[in-house]
């Protein structure tokens, strides 16, 4: 009995996509961002724009604290927000990925890159993010966080994916959608550029 409990707690530290019952007409999205800059504005717009009930949960890193385990709803989509201007942002996201159940990678994870327009960003970092998204077969979105328009666009994209991931679209599943939206690596990413 005791052994079973230990196993249980280890399993629970891993975020699972199907560990809880879904709510009616509800979608839950988890925004993971180590900088905590884009999370809050994005969450506000997400709740505002959605035509269904959206619960937005914010986290700096994974794993999520065990105390809230009971009250936490089923997470339908995990979004990793990566600031391209900092190496730490990418490293933090990579570390957090280990605390996700592999079931999430079947269409319930999405990467959102921001600050990509900054000229000082080394191109290798963007390549690293692209490789990460491609290896996890997840969609890669680019967001402009400086303008309200960019924020709305990012929100619309997230909501589209979220709707599919939460099962609110008849005849579509998260896996089916993600087979179409996952990021596939361009062939020339490892080729040297000549410019």
């Amino acid at each position, binding site marked *: 009995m005791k052994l079973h409990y230990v196993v249980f707690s280890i399993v629970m530290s891993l975020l699972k996509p*199907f*560990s*809880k*019952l*879904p709510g*009616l*007409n509800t979608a839950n999205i988890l925004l993971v961002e180590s900088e905590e800059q884009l999370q809050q504005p994005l969450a506000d717009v997400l709740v505002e724009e959605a035509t269904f009930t959206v619960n937005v949960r914010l986290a700096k890193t994974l794993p999520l604290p065990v105390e809230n385990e009971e009250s936490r709803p089923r997470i339908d989509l995990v979004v990793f927000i990566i600031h391209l201007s900092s190496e730490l942002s990418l490293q933090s996201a990579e570390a957090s*990925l280990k605390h996700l*159940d*592999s*079931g999430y*990678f*079947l269409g319930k994870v999405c990467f959102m890159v921001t600050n990509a327009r900054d000229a000082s960003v080394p191109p290798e970092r963007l390549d690293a993010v692209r490789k990460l998204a491609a*290896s*996890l*077969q997840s969609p890669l979105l680019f967001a402009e966080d400086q303008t309200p328009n960019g924020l709305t666009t990012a929100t619309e994209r997230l909501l589209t994916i979220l709707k599919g991931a939460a*099962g*609110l679209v*008849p*005849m579509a*599943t998260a*896996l*089916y959608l993600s*087979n179409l939206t996952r990021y596939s690596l361009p062939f020339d990413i490892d080729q040297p550029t000549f410019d």
Partner: protein
Amino acid sequence: MTEEVLGGLAPTQLSGAAQGELMDLCEQQFAQLEKLQNEIILCESDFSDSPQEQSVNRLIATEAELKQWLSTEPELLAENSEVLLRAGKAEMLKLCSELEMVFSCSEAKRDKLRETKVCEEKWLEDKTQVLSAAMNHVERLKMEKEKLSEQSVLKDTKMKIEKMKAYEESLMDCLGDILEKHIPHPQNGASGYKKTKNASTEPEEDLISLGEILEQLMNKVLETPHDPYVTIDNTFWPPYVEMLLRYGIAVRHQENNFKIRLETFC
């Protein structure tokens, strides 16, 4: 999915029978959902967690889903006609609003295309005009070319040369007339002056007229352009030389005071 669609529709105006039927359906669905949920929690995931195996996981899952879709029988909605009517109406309204959006979108697109068409037509008209103008020009040039033969060009040039010669002649005549009228030969004009004022100096007999001085200067410029200077000798009447210099018709040599040349008029 069905549960949610019907749940969203469950209205208060429905008759008790219809409502009951819907509730039954919902409960069936929810029970099914709970059963599946428990199965999921209990079953051991045979997926590996390493990211390298993600594509394998995805393939397995996609294949399973495909199998599921293939074996799924389409389910009918509730049999109650009231419910069907509601669902159908909602679906129709949704379809209508979607079609309206498509319509307005295509209308906007059509208007834009119309604008583009007007622009393009104007552009085409402009280009056609340019083309026709260019064609006219080409035509005219062709006709001129046909008209012009080698002989006619020669004749033309000859005529121009003749014209120039006649013009030069008239210019020279004019100059000669002016000189004769206003600037007399020094010997004739100066003789009276000298006799009265300065009889001591011998009047020089071989003085030349201003016209001749100018002629010498001009000839020198034309014959030896590299050395246009003419030496002043005693045949040049000094007042005339002075006059030429003063009015900027002639220029003195920078090093040799006895040499002058014609000013470069051009």
